[in-house]
C-alpha cells in the first residue's frame, strides 16, 4: 500500500487524499479477492467432498462442472427475505455478522501475497493477526445471544469456549518460529526462510530448528478449531444443534458468516504457509517471461496461492473424513494435549537456539 501512496503523491495528489484513496483501493481489492476466493473455495469444497463420497457434485450451473454454482448460490442468498426474529435484539443481531466479517477482513492486512505485496508491512504482524482473530469470538457471542433462541446461545457459548481455548496453543506454537526469526514481521519471517540453496524446501521453517514440525501440526490443529471446521465444528453441528449460533440468520446476513468462515480459513492457511512453509518463496520460472520487476512478484503470488490452497485442500479432506469431537473431548484435546505439546515445542526451540549460540 505504501507503494500506491508514493506513486500517487509523485503524481501530485495531496497526501491525505492519496492515503485515504490508497486505503480504499486496497480495501476494495481485498474484498474482491475474498469474495472470489470464498466462492471458489465453496465450489471446490463441494467438488472435493463429492468426489470423496463417490458422487459428482455441482455439474450443471455454468456448464463445465458447475463452476457458477457458487455465484448462483450467492445471488440466491442476496435476494432472500431478511428475517429477524421478533424478540431478537435488532441492533446486536444486525451488528454481529458485520463484526465477524470485518474482523476476518481485517486480518488480511498482514497476509504476504508476494515480495512487497502486502497491504501494510506491520512490525507486529503476527501479534496483530492474533489479536484481531480473537475479535471473531465476540461476534459469535453477539450472534448467538441476539437470536433469542436457546440453541443459538448454547452454540455461541460452545463456540466461544472452543475458540478461546485453542487460541493459546495457536499462539504458543507460532512462538517457536518467532523465536528463531527474531521478529514479528511477516516479510522478515518469509525472507528468513531463504538460504544458501535458494528457494528450496529444506530452508522452510517446518524443517527448521527444534521441533518445528510439531509446531506446525499443533498450529494446524488449533487453527482448524479456530475456524470451527471439522472435526471441531460443534458450533455448527447440523445434526445436533441445527447450525448453532447462526440458526436464525438468513439471506445476506448468513452469507456474511459463511464468507467470514472461508476468509478465515484462507488467512489461517496463509499464516501457516508464511510461518512454516516458506511463504511465497519458490522457484522463479516467470522472470524470463515477464521481466525482472514483475516476474518475482507473479512467481511469489503463484507459489503462495499454491501452498495456501494445498493446505485448504487438506482442511477440506479432514472435514469429510473425520467424525466430530464432543465438546468436552474437544476441550480435553485443547488444554491437556495441544497445550503441553506446544510448550514442549517452545522449550525445545529455546534449547536449540541456546545450543546454536554456544557452538
Amino acid at each position, binding site marked *: 500500500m505504501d507503494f500506491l501512496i508514493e506513486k500517487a503523491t509523485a503524481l501530485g495528489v495531496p497526501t491525505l487524499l492519496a492515503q485515504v484513496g490508497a486505503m480504499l483501493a486496497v480495501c476494495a481489492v481485498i474484498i474482491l479477492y475474498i469474495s472470489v476466493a470464498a466462492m471458489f473455495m465453496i465450489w471446490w469444497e463441494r467438488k472435493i467432498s463429492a468426489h470423496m463420497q463417490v458422487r459428482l457434485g455441482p455439474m450443471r450451473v455454468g456448464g463445465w462442472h458447475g463452476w457458477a454454482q457458487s455465484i448462483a448460490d450467492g445471488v440466491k442468498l442476496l435476494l432472500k427475505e431478511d428475517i429477524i426474529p421478533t424478540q431478537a435484539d435488532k441492533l446486536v443481531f444486525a451488528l454481529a455478522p458485520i463484526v465477524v466479517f470485518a474482523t476476518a477482513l481485517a486480518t488480511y492486512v498482514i497476509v504476504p501475497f508476494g515480495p512487497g505485496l502486502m497491504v501494510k508491512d506491520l512490525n*507486529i504482524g503476527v501479534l496483530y493477526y492474533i489479536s484481531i482473530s480473537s475479535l471473531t469470538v465476540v461476534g459469535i457471542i453477539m450472534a448467538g445471544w441476539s437470536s433469542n433462541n436457546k440453541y443459538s446461545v*448454547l452454540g455461541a457459548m460452545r463456540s466461544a469456549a472452543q475458540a478461546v481455548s485453542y*487460541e493459546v496453543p495457536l499462539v504458543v506454537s507460532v512462538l517457536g518460529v518467532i523465536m528463531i526469526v527474531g521478529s514479528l514481521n511477516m516479510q522478515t519471517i518469509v525472507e528468513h526462510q531463504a538460504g544458501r540453496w535458494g528457494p528450496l524446501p529444506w530452508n522452510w521453517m517446518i524443517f527448521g530448528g527444534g521441533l518445528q514440525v510439531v509446531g506446525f501440526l499443533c498450529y494446524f490443529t488449533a487453527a482448524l478449531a479456530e475456524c470451527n471446521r471439522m472435526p471441531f465444528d460443534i458450533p455448527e453441528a447440523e445434526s445436533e444443534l441445527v447450525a448453532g449460533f447462526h440458526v436464525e440468520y438468513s439471506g445476506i446476513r448468513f452469507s456474511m458468516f459463511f464468507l467470514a468462515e472461508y476468509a478465515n480459513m484462507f488467512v489461517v492457511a496463509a499464516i501457516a504457509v508464511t510461518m512454516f512453509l516458506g511463504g511465497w518463496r519458490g522457484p522463479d520460472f516467470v522472470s524470463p517471461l515477464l521481466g525482472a520487476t514483475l516476474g518475482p512478484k507473479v512467481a511469489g503470488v503463484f507459489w503462495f496461492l499454491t501452498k495456501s490452497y494445498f493446505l485448504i485442500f487438506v482442511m477440506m479432506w479432514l472435514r469429510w473424513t473425520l467424525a466430530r469431537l464432543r465438546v468436552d473431548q474437544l476441550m480435553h484435546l485443547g488444554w491437556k494435549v495441544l497445550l503441553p505439546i506446544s510448550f514442549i515445542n517452545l522449550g525445545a526451540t529455546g534449547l536449540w537456539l541456546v545450543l546454536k549460540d554456544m557452538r
Partner: protein
Amino acid sequence: MSVEQGLFYFLAAFSVALALIVVLAQNIVRAAVALIFSFCGLAGLYILLDAEFLAAVQVLIYVGGITILLLFAILLTSRIAGKGVRVLNEQKVVSGIVAVVLMVLLGLAATRGFEAPAELPKQPENTPRIGTLLMTTYALPFEAVSILLLAGMVGAIFLARKEEK
C-alpha cells in the same frame, strides 16, 4: 488540523461516547458490546502514540479476553434467552456529579502537571524493547504477576467446582 489530530479527536469522541453508553444503557448486553468498541477505540489511541505492541495487546487481552469473560458471565447468570437483563441505577445524580468533579480534577492534573514536548520523539521498535525490559529490569514484577494470575485461576476453579456429595 493534521490527519493525526483529526484522528485523535475522532477516536477520543468514539471511545467516550461508547463509554457513556456502557454506563447509561438499560440492556446489559448492549453495554457490554459498547464496552468492546470503546476498548477498540482505546487501541486506536495507543497506535497514535506509537505504542503498537500495547495496542495489539489491548485488543487481544481486553477485547478478546476480558469482555468475553463479561459476556459469558452475563449469559450464564441470566435466564437463557429471556428478556434482556435490566440495569438498575438509582444513584444517577450523585454519580453524575462525582464523574464531572473527577473529570475536572483529572483534566487539571493532565494539562498543568506535565511538560508535554512539542512533538513526540519517534520510538524505536516497541516489542523487543518491552520484551527486554520485562526479562531484565522488571523480571520480578513479571513473575509476581504470573503467580497472582495462577492464584486467581486456582481460586476460580475451586469456586466453580460443584460440591461433591
